[in-house]
Each structure stands twice: as structure tokens, then as C-alpha cells.
């Protein structure tokens, strides 16, 4: 079905403020009397704080306040599990934990003040290694984690934050049925979301005693709730003013430094701005969890999967505070079965405390980790069985009506179509152009995000329509998409629809941005609000008795009677739809045998999509996620030694550059079956998770070397090749 505006290629009309630099992000907000806050951070992974001397810092000219935990109420914060103090009280648990904050007239004076604070620490034994954190006698990160508000009950070891289990059938029976059983273990690295805007916020207390907040946070209502708890103030006393956000990718949903900015503002009587330096992001910015995943799969000789057991450990670091799910776990844990039917399945996943950087949500939380393991594992099994990796997948793909590990039945499954589309577009079956060139395939799928959103549409006397929402702009293009929905339903031109961004005073609640839900929840809220407005307009037109009246005329007529024509809708998508969105990707790589260097010659990405509302925005999400996946696969890492992250500048974490992108083919398998407006699905987190295994599988195809831990560096491939050659020589002699 074709629509008038939905689905048409229109430019990113929402960009004038971005291309001109006119948009004000949180770090750009300025208020009279603004001062700067900065945090002092722990240099040790686990230590008792013996004493803090702030006297020299306080005496520095230009310093207005210095606070330690002693100056603050004993409050713990978190997104779901409240285990993190505002400032370390008697002990630090990771390198980078905040120990004190200062407020000064400019950031350089603040830095000078930090250098003048003396903290005496007493080193304590630390638990650094993920695999050892659950040993008997491993140093305990939190003595009584179960006592924290929001803590899950199950705690087989003090260093367990949360455990998730998924079960289908009976794995022991399944393994007995298997002809062959394979087990492999995979590791993924600590990696940052890499948004270019570091966390920033401004907090001011206005003349009415209300706390005004501007922050790089993508869930303003939840932020208001969390601030209320952290500051021990009623929610009505707090207003979050929305600002555009310079990249989120899961990492900008927490309080971060905002409560401290509040306290500095409270004691100085001045608005306070706190902006993290990128080095602080890299040591304390809630990055993606590293993982250690073992997969064990039983198959029949003809390549049917009869059983799978997965054990995953996620290195969650010193605090659970940054994880927002009620389970205090990562959704990716449930992806242990991948896109395959598994009659017998047991997934056991642990989020583990260590004295490392606390991790949080990153695009597709837990999924790039689990899918790297699962899709590599599939290829390794196929090879052992002598089966083509695509054929092995075909024999096991999910079908309509299949049951997922989370209990959901699937409908409108497009797994096969998406796989075939990727294989065709990548010329999978054609001979490779030369030696040391390989192809690899990988698949994943994802549910469409759920949440709740309020939307209001208002007919202006100009005949334009204003869409009022409290969803910040994180860059996805959602605001334009929502305008398109409104324009489509109300029969308007896109230029006649504008967004009015609400503060948290306007609507009661909104789950905010995240989980690839905004097209769905924001779109449906806007859609239904427009339907209501249409009815109001129709009624108004009937009253006026002028059937051909313009919208402007109708609005003006109502205005003369003191009425505004507007309608609201609250949309709450309580449960996940029975449709998911499949992704199939093919990497074609060349390996330089002399150096091990992997270059991606071509990448194909196929997506099973619903109605695409904004093609340019949609494609942008695919491309952006994919290149994040490429970085994760080949180059990104925050290496850690003894709990110390050694890459403390963005240049060293190796985000991909413009020269690193491979030629790309995108295939969209379109079917209007999504739960979003006009049957849209979701795309934001669809393209990232299968990239690493597609590349790992391609490398194995190119040179026979299987890399089991990310990133796939030239050095790893080089030494694996040399070891392989050595083994071959030994076998010959």
C-alpha cells in the first residue's frame, strides 16, 4: 500500500539546527552565574577511604564548593537496583568511582582544585577477572547485595548481581538424543558506546525553589523520578527540560553526575554545569558488558539441533546501578537460541560483580555478545558436520508458531526470506575472486521495542498542526518520522507539522527513548491522537456548516469561542508483539596471510522490515549500527589491566573512521506486519549484532583460522595462521 508521505524519500528536514550549529545540547546551555562542577575519581579498584582532606582545594581562589560523601545524605542510586552511592562513602570499588566534587568558576580552576584534594586510601584485594569472580574466596564486591532495593533474589554467590534462566523442554534428554555434541567458548571485550557527546548536564534551582535540569538523558520522565529519589524531593519540585542528545546507543539513561550537580548548586546558590571529559567516559561511563559465553549444542547427523545449553557470564563491574531492566540483566541473554528452533534449551546467564567499570546498556544490550557466540558456534558445527553453513541454518530456522525461550510464540516469521535475500544479494554461491578471500553469514532477530508514550496534537489557527511529545531527539530521526505520521493521518504537507518538545511538566509519564521503540510507541500515540483530532475537526466542521472550510478557518472559528482543537493519546504497548525483525548479513573478507590483516571487501545486510516510514532515516540506522558492529568486530576495545583501563582517549579506543567502511549492499524484505503505525516495525538495533560473527565466519572461510574472542585483530589472525602452519608441518613429519 502506498501512502502520501509515509514511505517517501524526503530529506532530513529536521536538520537545520544541526547543520548550522544552532541546536543547543546540554553542554551548550548557559545560565547567568553558571559555574562548573568536576569530579575527583578513585585511582584504585578496591580500597578503603581512610581520609579526605579538601582544605587546600577549598582555599583556592575561584573554588566555590568542595563536597565529599560526608556532606551528602547516605543515599544509593540506580536505574533498577539501587547499589551505588552518590560519592564513595567509606570505600571505592572501581578505578574511576567518584570520591569528591568541586564547583569553580571555570573548568580549569576546577581541575586545579581536584589536584589539591588529598585522599588517603588503604588498598584492598580486588576481584578483577570475570572467570574468577565466582570462585570461593574471591574478594567480595558488595557484602550484602541482596539487601539493596531492586536486587533480584537469587544470589548463588555474593558476586552475582542477577541470574537469568531460559528453559525449553529438557536439555539432558535432548543431549542424549543427539548424535554429536559440540562445545565452544567465546569472549567479547569491554567496548564503549562511542557517542561523541560526553555526558553533560546543567542543574539550577529557580526562584520558586524548583530544580531545573538540562541533561544528555534520553528518558526525561524516568530521570525526573530518579532525581526525586536521589535528592529526596517530590517529583513536582523537579523539571527536566529536553535538549537534543549527541548520541545515546543505550548509554544515556542514568543519573550519572546530575545529583552531584544539584548538591553543588544547592550549596553555592548558582547553576552548575558538569560535562564529563572523554577520559572520564572511558573510565566511568557505563559501557557494554564484556562476556564469557560457552555454548554446547547437540545435533543429529543430518544437521538438526536437538539440544542447546548456554552459560554466559557478563562482567558487570562494581555496580548494578546502570542496568534498567527489572531483571537487572541484559536482554541479550535470551538470544542464546539465536534464530533457530530448539526443542530443548537451557540458558543460564550471570551478571557478575567485579571491581571494574560498572557497565550498562549498549545498542542491543547483551546481543552482540550472545550472537557472536551463537553464530560462530553454528559455523563451527556446520564445518564439523561437513554441511554448508547456510544449509545447516536452513534446516533449523524458526518458523511461524514456534516458541521462543522467553515464552513468546512467533508469527509472520521471515527468517528464511531474509537469509535468502542476503545470500542472493551477496553472490554467496559464486566462486570467490581469489585465494585468501572468504565469505561468512550470520543471522539474528529482535523484537520490536515496547514502552509507553503520551502524544498531543493541536490544530493551530494557521492550519498547521503541532505534535507535542516528551521524547528527546537522540539522532534517530524519530521526530521527523512522527511528523510524517501526523501529516499522513491528517492529510497535511510535512512542512505543516511541527514538533513541540514538552518538558516533564506537561505529561504524566513517558518511557522515553530506547529499545528501538519510538517509531512504535511514539508513532502509535501520535497516530491515535490524530484520529481523535480528526473526529474533533469533523465535529467542528459540521457545527460550522461549511464543509469545505480550511483547517485554519476551523481553528480560528474555535479560537473565537475560546477553544483550542487538540487531542491526546496515551499508548502503552505492554507486551511484545508476536512479530520480530530478522537480520541476515554476509561479509566478504580478504586476509593478508603475511600480516593477518582482515579487510572487508564487501558487506551485505538484509532486513525483514515492516512499512518503512522514512527511507533515509531507516537506512541511516542500518548503516550506523552496522559500522558500530564493524568496529566491535575488528578494532574497538578498552583493554584493562588490574582494573585499570589503559585507553583513556577516544583516539585509542579505535572507533571506525570514514576510511574504514566497506562497500555495502542493503536488502529490505518488506512486509507490512509490524505493530507500529502503518504496520511499521523497528530498525535501530537490527544491524549491529550479527556483524562480528559474519566477519569471524568469513575469516574462517578465507584462511581456516577461527577467532573466538573479539576484536578480530590482525595479530590474532597472524599468530593463529602461524600456529596452524606449524601444526601442519608437525603432522607431515
Amino acid at each position, binding site marked *: 500500500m502506498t501512502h502520501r508521505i509515509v514511505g517517501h524519500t524526503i530529506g532530513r528536514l529536521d536538520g537545520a539546527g544541526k547543520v548550522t550549529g544552532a541546536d543547543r545540547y546540554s553542554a551548550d546551555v548557559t545560565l547567568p552565574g553558571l559555574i562548573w562542577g568536576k569530579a575527583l575519581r578513585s585511582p584504585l579498584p578496591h580500597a578503603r577511604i581512610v581520609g579526605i582532606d579538601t582544605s587546600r582545594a577549598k582555599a583556592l581562589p575561584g573554588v566555590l564548593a568542595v563536597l565529599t560523601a560526608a556532606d551528602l545524605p547516605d543515599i544509593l542510586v540506580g536505574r533498577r537496583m539501587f547499589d551505588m552511592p552518590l560519592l564513595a562513602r567509606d570505600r571505592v570499588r572501581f578505578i574511576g568511582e567518584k570520591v569528591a566534587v568541586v564547583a569553580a568558576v571555570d573548568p580549569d580552576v576546577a581541575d586545579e582544585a581536584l589536584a589539591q584534594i588529598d585522599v588517603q586510601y588503604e588498598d584492598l584485594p580486588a576481584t578483577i577477572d570475570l572467570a574468577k569472580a565466582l570462585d570461593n574466596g574471591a574478594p567480595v564486591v558488595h557484602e550484602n547485595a541482596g539487601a539493596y532495593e531492586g536486587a533480584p533474589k537469587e544470589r548463588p554467590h555474593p558476586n552475582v548481581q542477577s541470574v537469568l534462566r531460559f528453559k525449553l523442554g529438557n536439555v539432558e534428554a535432548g543431549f542424549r538424543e543427539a548424535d554429536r555434541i559440540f562445545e565452544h567458548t567465546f569472549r567479547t571485550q569491554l567496548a564503549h558506546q562511542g557517542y561523541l557527546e560526553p555526558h553533560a548536564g546543567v542543574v539550577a534551582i529557580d526562584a520558586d525553589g524548583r530544580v531545573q535540569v538540562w541533561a544528555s538523558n534520553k528518558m526525561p520522565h524516568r530521570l525526573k523520578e530518579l532525581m526525586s529519589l536521589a535528592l529526596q524531593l517530590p517529583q513536582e519540585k523537579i523539571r527536566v527540560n529536553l535538549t537534543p542528545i549527541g548520541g545515546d546507543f543505550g548509554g544515556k539513561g542514568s543519573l550519572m553526575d546530575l545529583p552531584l550537580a544539584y548538591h553543588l548548586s544547592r550549596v553555592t546558590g548558582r547553576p552548575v554545569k558538569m560535562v564529563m571529559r572523554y577520559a572520564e567516559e572511558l573510565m566511568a561511563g557505563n559501557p557494554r558488558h564484556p562476556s564469557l559465553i560457552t555454548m554446547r549444542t547437540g545435533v543429529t547427523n543430518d544437521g538438526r539441533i536437538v539440544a542447546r545449553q548456554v552459560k554466559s557470564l557478563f562482567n558487570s563491574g562494581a555496580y548494578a546501578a546502570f542496568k534498567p531492566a527489572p531483571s537487572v540483566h541484559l536482554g541479550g541473554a535470551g538470544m542464546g537460541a539465536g534464530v533457530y528452533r530448539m526443542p530443548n534449551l537451557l540458558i543460564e546467564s550471570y551478571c557478575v560483580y567485579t571491581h571494574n567499570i560498572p557497565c550498562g546498556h549498549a545498542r542491543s544490550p547483551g546481543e552482540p555478545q550472545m550472537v557472536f557466540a551463537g553464530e560462530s558456534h553454528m559455523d563451527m558445527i556446520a564445518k564439523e558436520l561437513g554441511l554448508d553453513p547456510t544449509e545447516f541454518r536452513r534446516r533449523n530456522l524458526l518458523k511461524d508458531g514456534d516458541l521462543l525461550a522467553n515464552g513468546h510464540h512467533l508469527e509472520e516469521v521471515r527468517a528464511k526470506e531474509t537469509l535468502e535475500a542476503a545470500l542472493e544479494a551477496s553472490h554467496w554461491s559464486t566462486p570467490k575472486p581469489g585465494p585468501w578471500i572468504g565469505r561468512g553469514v550470520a543471522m539474528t532477530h529482535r523484537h520490536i521495542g515496547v514502552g509507553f508514550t503520551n502524544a498531543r496534537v493541536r490544530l493551530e489557527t494557521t492550519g498547521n498542526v503541532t505534535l507535542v511529545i516528551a521524547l528527546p531527539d537522540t539522532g534517530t530521526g524519530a521526530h521527523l518520522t512522527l511528523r510524517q505520521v501526523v501529516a499522513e493521518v491528517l492529510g497535511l504537507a510535512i512542512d505543516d507539522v511541527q514538533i513541540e518538545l514538552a518538558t516533564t511538566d506537561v505529561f504524566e509519564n513517558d518511557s522515553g527513548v530506547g529499545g528501538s521503540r519510538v517509531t512504535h510507541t511514539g508513532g502509535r500515540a501520535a497516530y491515535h491522537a490524530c484520529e481523535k483530532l480528526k473526529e474533533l475537526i469533523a465535529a467542528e466542521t459540521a457545527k460550522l456548516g461549511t464543509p469545505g472550510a480550511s483547517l485554519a478557518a476551523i481553528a480560528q472559528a474555535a479560537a473565537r469561542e475560546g477553544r483550542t482543537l487538540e487531542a491526546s493519546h496515551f499508548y502503552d504497548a505492554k507486551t511484545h508483539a508476536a512479530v520480530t525483525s530478522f537480520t541476515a548479513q554476509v561479509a566478504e573478507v580478504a586476509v593478508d596471510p603475511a600480516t593477518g590483516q582482515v579487510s572487508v571487501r564487501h558487506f551485505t545486510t538484509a532486513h525483514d522490515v515492516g512499512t518503512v516510514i522514512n527511507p533515509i532515516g531507516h537506512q541511516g540506522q542500518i548503516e550506523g549500527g552496522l559500522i558500530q558492529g564493524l568496529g566491535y568486530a575488528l578494532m574497538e576495545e578498552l583493554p584493562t589491566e588490574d582494573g585499570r583501563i589503559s585507553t583513556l*582517549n577516544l583516539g585509542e579506543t579505535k572507533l571506525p573512521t*570514514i576510511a574504514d567502511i566497506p562497500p555495502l549492499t542493503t536488502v529490505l524484505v518488506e512486509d507490512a506486519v509490524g505493530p507500529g503505525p502503518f504496520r511499521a516495525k523497528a530498525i535501530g538495533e537490527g544491524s549491529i549484532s550479527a556483524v562480528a560473527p559474519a566477519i569471524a565466519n568469513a575469516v574462517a572461510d578465507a584462511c581456516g583460522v577461527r577467532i573466538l574472542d573479539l576484536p578480530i585483530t590482525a595479530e590474532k589472525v597472524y599468530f593463529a595462521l602461524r600456529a596452524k602452519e606449524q601444526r601442519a608441518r608437525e603432522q607431515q613429519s
Partner: protein
Amino acid sequence: MNRTIRITVNGVAREVEVPTYRTLLDCLRYDLGLTGSKEGCGVGVCGACTVLLDGRMVSSCIALAVFADGHEVTTVEGLAGDERLHPVQQAFMDCGGFQCGICTPGQVVAAKALLDTIENPTEAQIKEWMLGNLCRCTGYYKIVESIQAAAKAVEP
């Protein structure tokens, strides 16, 4: 220690007193109110702070404000001149060369400098010139397209 410096910013002569440790970026953003240029990495790598100093693109986060004393600086706010949008800015909107927008001021300033230096750049030349402008949202494909479109638009 403060210094009074004179910088011509986007064609306008400005005079401002700054501490010697003030970076050019902080001077533009906080002393002169031009918040279009952004601080990302703070070490000159990501390009979010790209401005033109005497027409040449530089990392303003690792340049001292005093370096610009007596010189000309062009920021994203000055790209359009008298027009509403410079062709590069229009092209980024038409092609979707941005998403969150935090790197975009740096991207468009760098792209304008590229088109001032190389007429009709090849894809390889675009990638080499833009190597230092990181973007985490777009995956770069639409940035390349935007610059190619802008090059056609500025063709004489």
C-alpha cells in the same frame, strides 16, 4: 594571567579577555557565545571542534585562544554567509549526512574546507580529507554522499 585578544570571527571583529589557558574552542563557545562548535574527545582526534583558522581546518580544542589573536576564524555559524544555508549544509540535509548532529558542525566545516581546496573530489579524496571527522551515528555512507552532492552543487 589574562590576555586581551582580537579575533575576526565569521567576518566580525571581536575582542575578548581570556586566561592564557583558554582553548580556542572554549573561547568561541563560552566567551563569544558561539556554541555550534562542540567538544567531543578533547584531544584533537574526533573533529567535533573543527573550525577554520585563516581558512585552514584545525582542532580548536587543542589550540590556545591566544593562537588566534590577530587572525581569522570561521565556525559553523559563519558558513552560510548571507545565504540561509551553505550548499554543504543543504546537501547534508538532503542526503541525511547527520543523525544526532553533535559531529555535524565539524563535518560541514571540514567539508566546506575540502571543496575550497579540491574541486570535485573523488571518493578517495573525500575519505582522506574527512578522515579526522569521526561520526558514531551514520556509519559515514551518507556523509560521503552528502559531500558528493555538495560538490556537484558548488560546481561552477
